[in-house]
């Protein structure tokens, strides 16, 4: 932001900067660009964000281990959803190929941290600060390689091409048995070791699930803040300009190719990191898991949560991840629904139908997703009791 004003002679001291001029009791009155661009621009947002993070931290001590594992997986999926939101939500490039980049991250990490000399490729580097960035960078490299196609194509052409990418990737990963172990066999996933401490075993910081939960939570916060920062920067504004009208963006001087490549690169980086982390929870990767359904799940998270909002992507990921344990509890409440896969209707069918229906219903009735619902609630209470 400072860069835009530095050069001109009109960088006059008349424009107030900093937070000093905040008017008490008027949180929405911005007296400087810095306030306008702030990460959390009102006191309420700062307080509630801090409270949410504290609550999430506290949950690690309260919840049972299985519940923590579900939440940890949700946090990882949220990282992936934030990544998809960068390319699809902020930059407006529809990608159905997210599962492909997730797979690249997962296998890069698994290969780096795998035991050397085993059935599958492995280099024995289990430190998370090595394999996590490496997984992200490998996926980002793949994203940048794909991006030239993206810059030539628009809209649904791009969606179909990225869909083709998923199928090609699935084929490669199924066939490349030295890396992936092959269909139905799979291989061990990346081992999270932080400075010599194995986080996937009970240790000094609590049980296995507690440690992994905290790891995923910290990483989610880091990735979410990074995405928010990207979105409010020059790059984020360029993305939004391309999404809203790419020709207009080009006319006002946004280099389309560079920013589309950047969007794919960053998004794939997130996907790669999410892929690397996702399978540390189960400890096992199977090449069949990176199919079109995974991509659709990420799309669903972004759409149900709220397009082009980081908090929405997180909410969507949490919502869809919690859907699974909730539907698993249904047979006890609704006797018609069976827990047995051979019966109809069973929980898996209910879960899949809910997926599809939720996507359709949200898009028809609340296109802004969960984030939009929150905005409605907030606006209602803002003017309460005169909200009509």
């Amino acid at each position, binding site marked *: 932001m400072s860069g835009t004003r530095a050069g001109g002679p009109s960088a006059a001291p008349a424009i107030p900067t900093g937070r000093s001029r905040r008017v008490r009791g008027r949180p929405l009155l911005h007296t400087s660009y810095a306030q306008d661009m702030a990460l959390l621009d009102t006191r309420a947002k700062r307080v509630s964000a801090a409270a949410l993070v504290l609550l999430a931290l506290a949950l690690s001590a309260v919840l049972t281990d299985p519940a923590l594992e579900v939440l940890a997986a949700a946090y990882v999926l949220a990282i992936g959803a934030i990544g998809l939101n960068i390319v699809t939500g902020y930059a407006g490039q*529809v990608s159905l190929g997210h599962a492909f980049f997730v797979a690249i991250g997962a296998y890069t990490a698994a290969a780096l941290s795998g035991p050397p000399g085993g059935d599958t490729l492995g280099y024995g580097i289990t430190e998370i600060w090595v394999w996590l960035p490496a997984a992200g960078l490998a996926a980002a490299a793949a994203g940048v390689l794909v991006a030239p*196609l993206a810059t*030539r*194509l*628009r*809209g*649904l*052409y791009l*969606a*179909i*091409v990225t*869909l*083709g*990418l998923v*199928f*090609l990737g*699935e*084929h*490669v990963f*199924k*066939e490349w048995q030295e890396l992936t172990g092959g269909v139905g066999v799979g291989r061990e996933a990346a081992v999270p070791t932080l400075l010599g401490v194995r986080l996937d075993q009970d240790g000094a910081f609590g049980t296995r699930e507690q440690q992994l939960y905290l790891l995923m939570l910290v990483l989610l916060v880091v990735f979410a803040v990074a995405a928010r920062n990207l979105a409010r920067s020059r790059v984020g504004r360029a993305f939004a300009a391309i999404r809203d009208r790419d*020709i*207009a963006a080009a*006319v006002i001087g946004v280099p389309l190719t560079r920013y589309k490549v950047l969007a794919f690169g960053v998004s794939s980086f997130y996907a790669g990191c999410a892929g690397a982390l996702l399978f540390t929870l189960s400890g096992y990767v199977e090449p069949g898991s990176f199919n*079109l359904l995974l991509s*659709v799940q990420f*799309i*669903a998270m972004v*759409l149900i949560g709220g397009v082009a909002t980081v908090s929405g992507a997180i909410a969507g990921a949490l919502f869809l991840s919690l859907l699974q344990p909730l539907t698993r509890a249904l047979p006890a409440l609704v006797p018609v629904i069976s827990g047995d896969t*051979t019966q*109809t*209707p069973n929980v898996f*069918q209910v879960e*899949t*139908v809910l*997926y*599809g*229906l*939720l*996507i*359709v219903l949200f*898009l*028809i009735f609340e*296109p802004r997703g969960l984030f939009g619902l929150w905005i409605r609630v907030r606006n209602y209470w803002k003017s309460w009791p005169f909200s009509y």
Partner: protein
Amino acid sequence: MTGTLETIIRGLGNGSVYALLALGFVIIYKATRVISFAQPALMLAGAVAVSYLAPVTGFYLGALLAALLIAAVALGIERVAIRPMVGRPVFVVAIITLGIDVVVRVVVNSLIGRDVRQVGDPWGFDLVALGPLVVQQRWLAMMAAAAALVTLLFAFFRHSKYGLAMRAAAYDQETALAQGVSVSAVFAVSWALAGFLAAVAGMFVGTGQGIEQTTWIVALKALPAIIVGGLDSLGGAVAGGLVIGVVESLFQSYQGAYLPWLGQNFAIVSPYVVMLVVLLVRPYGLFGTREVERV
């Protein structure tokens, strides 16, 4: 040589099925500018409907009834889920069709069950001799049916009042509205036609090997076909479908011997490779219209 020709005939047979599916995609795309990801579910639903109707009514009548039934289902989907979305970004509508696909497929899968269902077709894997060539009857049936349907469709678009209305609406919706064309009726007819074609294609996919829960993947091969042909070209859809079918069949027969390093079952993903290659050379497909933007 006969082997190659037989391979090509198999490819043309499968390709005509892809062409029917691709036509469905293109018809919806031309009318609404949306790619309907619900086509795979409709295809599977068509095949399942045939498999239930054929033992009761006989195969040919069953196939016709099933196709009409799926056309009605597609009409219903359009009315309930797509019509409220007119004027919204195409991406959003495309994702809605993705959601519908998921829902419909769950219902259809529960009708299929765990095992393979036979559609009750008269051809099976029976062979027929064409001079020196020995090919399966079903490939010829697919080609004949596709040729008949494509001819009918093109005649419909070319010569009937409704076909003209659909072409007008595809060309410019507002002008068509001003001339008295009911654009909403055009949307509905497009979906019904696409559902009909998908059901017929599904029935042919099920000939011989039957259908199972994973059969829906076949319908996605029509996506490379429409990209190769160009999203908004009916002729391109047919050509693209045939090209994809033949390429896939050639890979199926010869890739194991000549390009073994590509791995088993490469034929299944070969359509997507063809699509990528074509897009690198011609971003709007072989017969698609280049998008011209005015600033």
